[in-house]
Each structure stands twice: as C-alpha cells, then as structure tokens.
C-alpha cells in the first residue's frame, strides 16, 4: 500500500478519494486500538485521572497521564499530500487535552492558501469558451457540408467519399468534446469517489477514439493524394477499403489497447488525468507518427507539384490545371492538419501558446475544411446550381429532383436525360481536378 501511495505522490497529487480512504483506514485503526486499550483499562476499578485516548478526526492520540506532552507524527493523509514529515503535540493537563500545537497546517507543511493556479484556471475556462464556439460552428457547417455531399449523388467518388469520412470524423471529434465537457466539468454528482464509474470511462474511451480517428482520416487524406500523384494505376475501390480500415480500424486498436493497459496499470479516477507517460504513449505515439507522416507527405506533394509545374511548359490547359493544383496545395494545410507539426515537438514551456493555437484556433479546422472542400468547391457549386435550376424548372418545389432521381425508375421528364449516365458523369467531374 505504501509503495502505491508513494508512486502516486511522485506521478501526481493523489485524488481526494484516496486521501479520504486513507483517513478512514487510520480512523478505523485508531478507534480499534483505543477501544482495545479501554477494555484493558476497565479492569482496574480505580479511576486514573488523565487524558483518554482520542481520535480528533485527524490523528490518533494515545491515552496519557496529566503533565505529559504527547507527540504524534503528522497524519498519513497529510503526508500523502505534502510528502513532508513533521510532528504534532498535545499537552495532557488535569482538565484534559490541550489544543494541538503547532497548528497542523504549519507543522505538516500544508498550504491551504495556494492561489497561484487561479490565473491558469481562468485561462483554461476562457479557452473552453473559445473552443466551444469553434467546435459548434464547425459542427453546424460540417453537417450541412456532409448532407450536401451525401445528397448530390453525382459527386460520389473516392475523393469525396474520403472527404465525407473526414467530415464525419470532425463531427465526432466536436461531439465527443461536448460530451466529455458535459460529463467531466459540469457535473455535480457526489459519486466522485466511486472509482468504478463505467459510463465515465466509456465516454473517455469514445473521446480518445474520436480524436484518434480524426488524426487517422487526416492521414488518409494525405495518403490518398500522395498515392494519386505518385502511383499512376491503382484500384480505387481496394484503396478506399484500405483507407476505411486505416481511418476507423486503427484508432480502435490503439484505443482498445490503451483502455486495457489503463484498466490494469493506472485505474485512477475517470481516466481523464494521465500521469503515467508510458501508458500514454499508446495514444501519443500513433498520433505523433500520423502528424509526422502527413507532414512528410505534404512536403513531398509540394515537391512533386513544383517539379511538374516547372517541367510543364506546353499547353495552356495543362498548365492551368497545375496552377490550380498549386493553388489547391495551399488549401491542403487544413485538410492534412499540417499545422499540428508546429507544436508536435515543442517543449512544455510553450503549452499555453500551444493550447491556444491548437484548441481555440484548431477547433475551427472543421469549419475551414467544410468551407474549402464543399462550399467553395467549384464542382459542388455547379452541382448545387444545376439541382436548383432543375428544381425550379420542374415546377414542383416540394419534390426535390434528388428524390425523383433515386426513387422513380425511368420516368419521363427532365430527369430522364440526366439519369442516363450519372456514374460516368460523376467520374468525369471527379477526375477534373485531383484536389
């Protein structure tokens, strides 16, 4: 027990629950000893003037004769908090016990007026407001973008499927943040000391999974574009299956192994505070690796584009295409999450800046991605305009064309012509630009 206590003291300050548990143990032990003493003392019928053994809600005072000064060590629960040794005293007077001296907080080195963290806390709360705004706006825009991409069937192709998965992972990341905040930081439940709150831990696992899935899909975007540029012929369908396994499967593996190790090695609280670095590497390692790989892919893609732009001198059309690609490359930063590399290896001193950069600003990444890859996308705009026109031409404002396209089989009217080759056309649309 002692070794586990010292271990937690080194890693992080213990939870209040552990302190309370230790205090309860000490109290039980003390009361047991006192009643044992009392039973032994009962036999001599002569009353002995003096001080009876006492549990003063903190330390155990053995019975003593008047005129003595009793010394006890600082209570173990205080030592647990301060990891400092000290002694407390009480005089046994003919009237009973004196007050404890010196004052317990001074004797055992407890600082109850520590308000140095106050400023940092205020900063964290401000940060929370900012990222809540960021994630909510991202969430709304992503939902709209996702429904547009889902509804416009002619936009369905590998690239957009990957975008859609990325959107979903962004949505999940935002949602899991809200759920986590609701569970952890706004609860007024008293069952805090119940260490086996399965629900809270499940929320935590879900949270970790959503974050990792988002990183995985950012990586998939990088891998896909890189494959597209480097390898001329590859099976898009097989590729997509592999990417889905990577994007949704690999986070599950890592998070599951994290949960298992956490359960057996560091089952503290709601798994929200991680003090054991080696366990945390299970999540941290893959995340850093994905950031690193994406950064390398990003640089490589840039190089390929630059080289192609330099060598291509003929044909205005193709040059235009590559110019478009070059322009799009700048838009790759939010899509790949290249900004994560800035602070991935920064020292701990830059933590406040990092938190501001990656949380307050980074929470808008989903919004930016939704705008750049859906609302500002020329193909999407074109498709939406087309649909809008069809909708108006048809004269049935209440019956969207998309519905008649998918459900009515070979009906007459303006939809018939477009229905003829939706897959070919969509493929044509998607091939027009790579990004």
């Amino acid at each position, binding site marked *: 027990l002692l070794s586990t206590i010292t271990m937690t003291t080194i890693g992080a300050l213990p939870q209040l629950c552990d302190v309370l548990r230790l205090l309860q143990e000490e109290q039980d032990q003390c009361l047991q000893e006192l009643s044992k003493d009392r039973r032994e003392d009962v036999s001599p019928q002569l009353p002995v003037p003096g001080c009876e053994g006492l549990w003063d*809600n903190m330390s155990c005072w053995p019975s003593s004769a008047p005129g003595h000064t009793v010394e006890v060590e600082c209570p173990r629960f205080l030592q647990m908090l301060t990891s400092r040794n000290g002694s407390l005293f009480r005089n046994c007077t003919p009237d009973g016990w004196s007050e404890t001296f010196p004052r317990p907080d001074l004797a055992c080195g407890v600082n109850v007026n520590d308000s140095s963290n106050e400023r940092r806390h205020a900063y964290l709360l401000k940060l929370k407001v900012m990222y809540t705004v960021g994630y909510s706006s991202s969430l709304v825009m992503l939902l709209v973008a996702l429904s547009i991409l889902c509804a416009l069937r002619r936009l369905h192709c590998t690239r957009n499927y990957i975008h859609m998965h990325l959107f979903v992972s962004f949505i999940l990341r935002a949602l899991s943040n809200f759920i986590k905040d609701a569970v952890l930081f706004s609860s007024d439940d008293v069952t805090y000391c119940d260490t086996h709150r399965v629900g809270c831990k499940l929320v935590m696992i879900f949270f970790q999974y959503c974050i990792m899935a988002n990183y995985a899909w950012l990586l998939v975007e990088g891998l896909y574009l890189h494959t597209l540029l480097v390898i001329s012929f590859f099976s898009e369908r097989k590729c997509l299956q592999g990417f889905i396994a990577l994007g949704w499967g690999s986070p599950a593996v890592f998070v599951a192994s994290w949960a298992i190790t956490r359960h057996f090695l560091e089952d503290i609280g709601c798994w929200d505070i991680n003090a054991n670095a080696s366990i945390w590497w299970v999540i941290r390692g893959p995340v850093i690796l994905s950031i690193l790989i994406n950064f390398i892919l990003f640089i490589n893609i840039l190089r390929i584009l630059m080289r192609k732009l330099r060598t291509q001198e003929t044909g205005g059309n193709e040059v235009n295409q590559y110019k478009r690609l070059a322009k799009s490359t700048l838009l790759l930063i939010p899509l790949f999450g290249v900004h994560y590399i800035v602070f991935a290896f920064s020292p701990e001193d830059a933590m406040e800046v990092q938190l501001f950069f990656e949380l307050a600003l980074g929470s808008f990444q989903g919004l930016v991605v939704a705008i750049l890859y859906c609302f500002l996308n020329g193909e999407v705009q074109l498709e939406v305009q087309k649909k809008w026109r069809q909708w108006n031409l048809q004269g049935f404002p209440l019956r969207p064309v998309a519905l008649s396209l998918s459900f009515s089989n070979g009906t007459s009217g303006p939809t018939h012509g477009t229905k003829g080759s939706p897959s070919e056309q969509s493929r044509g649309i998607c091939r027009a630009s790579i990004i």
Partner: protein
Amino acid sequence: MMSAKDMAKVMIVILAIVFLTRTDGKAIKKRAVSEIQFMHNLGKYLASLERIEWLRKKLQDVHRFPSLGAPLGAGEGGSQRSPPKEENILVDHHPKSLGEGDKADVDVLIKAKSQ
C-alpha cells in the same frame, strides 16, 4: 518524383528536430493532443481545488476540536467513577463523531464539485 535520397534528407532533418527538442526531457510530459492536455490540466486543477477546499475544512474542524473535546474529556473524567456508565459513553461518543466526520466530508465534496 521524390527520390529515396531526398526522402532520407527530409527524414534526417525531421529526426534532428525531434531529438533537439526532446533532449531537455520536458517534452516527454506533454500529451501531444491539445484536447487531452486541456482535459488533463483542468482535471488536475479541479482535483487540487477540491482537495484544498476539503483540507481547509478539515483543518478548521481539527482546530476547533479541542474546544469541543476538552469539556467532553473533563466530563468523561468526572464520570469515570462509575465504570459501567463510562462504557456507554465510549460506545455512544465515538460512532457519533465518526458519523459527523463522514457527513462533513460529503458536504465538502458536494461543495467542491458544484464549483
């Protein structure tokens, strides 16, 4: 196309950055994911707040204890002449203080959590 040589160059540069920033050992403590870092920081802060709040209450209780305890001790000293009665007091007194202590703990927990 990027050659293997270029790739190796990029890798070396990145690894150099990694190890240069890692040598002071401070980076080990970081969580790499900002959401997790935020949760960790805020969670630790709330836990310490809870602990300090509880400790303050606890120390106040203990400090006040002798003023409660001294008359009790004197009373018990007076009643010690009749041993059977004293037995009763012992049984009565301690479970009561135990219950009070628990209640105080729970109160503090409720208070700290709602903040």
